[in-house]
């Protein structure tokens, strides 16, 4: 079984995230088992519910949500990186975090790395 874990370190308003998304979608369509996407550094900004990108620009966050729903793709954000960037992770019923994302620690990255046959960073 081909398993893939992906690390995203670029923010949603960078266009580099489009390449990452296209790659992950191509992998899913090819039947690769993408065991999880881990958002680290500026990548965590993807989970900020308050982000508003002009409607005629690429909606990176919506596309991640779509992949999450269609393929049950786990999307993890690193809690330490998120708190540094103003994404409040402590509330129980948190309204700042997009529900497609799971708040995780770096331990999740260890788990993904150990399980995946390939680790790809974007």
């Amino acid at each position, binding site marked *: 079984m081909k398993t893939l874990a992906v690390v995203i370190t670029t923010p949603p*308003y*960078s*266009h580099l995230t489009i*390449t990452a998304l*296209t790659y992950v979608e191509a992998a899913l369509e090819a039947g690769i088992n993408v065991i999880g996407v881990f958002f680290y550094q500026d990548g965590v900004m993807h989970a900020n519910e308050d982000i508003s990108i*002009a409607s005629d*620009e*690429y909606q990176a966050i919506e596309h991640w949500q779509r992949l999450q729903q269609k393929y049950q793709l786990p999307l993890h954000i690193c809690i330490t990186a998120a708190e540094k960037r103003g994404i409040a992770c402590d509330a129980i019923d948190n309204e700042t975090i997009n529900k497609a994302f799971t708040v995780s620690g770096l331990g999740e990255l260890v788990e993904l790395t150990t399980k995946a046959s390939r680790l790809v960073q974007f």
Partner: protein
Amino acid sequence: MTVLNTQIASTELPASGLAIINSKAPFSSTHGKDALDVALIFGAFEQKVSLFFQGDGVYQLCANQDGRLVSIKDYLKTFSAFEFYDIEDIYVCQQSLANRQLAEDFHIDDVQVLSSIDFGTALNRHQHVLRF
């Protein structure tokens, strides 16, 4: 490396307006768009603003680009609005083009290709400089 610019202060007009140096390629970061937004607002407020393209920034001027091929809304098309905003001074560094093996083939008109020395001199005619 070029020789240093030597300018005779007495022959100069007083410096005025804002120079914006564009140093980044167009599609990977938002620097180009952010610089454009600043330029247009200065234009809208009828303040003098000039655009400088240097280093990888010169890629913003290349003809035949199409951001839509990589799902990017092509802000470069807005460059055609410069005339409307009275943004007339667009300078590109000749050395940066040459290093990148780029022809002087731009998607807007009236781009002035300058040697490093003239590029520096043109920068110097402005009171303020921002770089993106």
